[in-house]
């Protein structure tokens, strides 16, 4: 575990950069992390990030890419254009939730 200061707050991150405590997350932090990744967050990015967070808060786990493609309103093709380093993984990190565990 490491700590990092984001938007003036000490945030606890795991070795892969995912939030240890999703309740520490703010939207400003997502923008900050995205900028560090070289991503500029568009409305579409936010649509995915918000969906990830909602699913996590409801179900306790982030959605798979299949679920994202079916239910987030963003197609799988587009998801990979928005998050070229892997949509479920990247969006989960930006949304301050744990890395999705499934194999799909």
């Amino acid at each position, binding site marked *: 575990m490491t700590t990092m200061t984001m938007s003036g707050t000490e945030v606890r991150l795991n*070795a*892969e950069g995912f939030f240890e405590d999703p309740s520490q997350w703010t939207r400003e932090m997502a923008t900050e992390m995205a900028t560090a990744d070289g991503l500029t967050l568009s409305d579409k990015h936010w649509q995915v990030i918000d969906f990830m967070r909602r699913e996590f808060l409801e179900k306790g786990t982030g959605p*798979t*890419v*299949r*679920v994202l*493609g079916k239910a987030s309103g963003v*197609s*799988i*093709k587009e998801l*990979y254009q928005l998050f*070229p*380093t*892997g*949509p*479920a*993984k*990247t969006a989960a990190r930006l949304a301050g939730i744990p890395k999705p565990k*499934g*194999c*799909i």
Partner: protein
Amino acid sequence: MNTQEKITKVSIIISKGSLEGIYPGLIMANGARAEGMEANLFFTFFGLDAIHRSRIDRIKVATVGNPAMHMPTLIGTLPGMSALATRMMNKKMEALDIPPIREFIEMIADTGAGLYACKASVDMFGLAADDFVPQVKDTITVGDFYDLAAGGQIIFT
């Protein structure tokens, strides 16, 4: 995270046409893309059934010659056994959010992975480009495959 260099590209060969022969390669290709790696899929020999327009929805579990089915070989030969085992496995996979093969192939193509048919097998089985689902980019030779795979890992299934 380990300090070893990360895998950034995989080329996966699917050579078998049974359900248990096809899924592992698809799951690995999809997983590679999900991790941000480049991925190519190369279908050869009976693996071509996974991209064949009319056979893609009829992929079955092999109930004969498979000791891990834990049933006597003779039982596995009974009519309907393979269909039954396939139904059971499909149900379990759907519960785990693993899509049916046709949807999985579409999904993997949408992730940006390249899907290719092996020329030698296509010629041997007397197939043509229009026998395949539209997600297949091309029919390529083994030489083309090695060119595509350059700089990455090759996985044979």
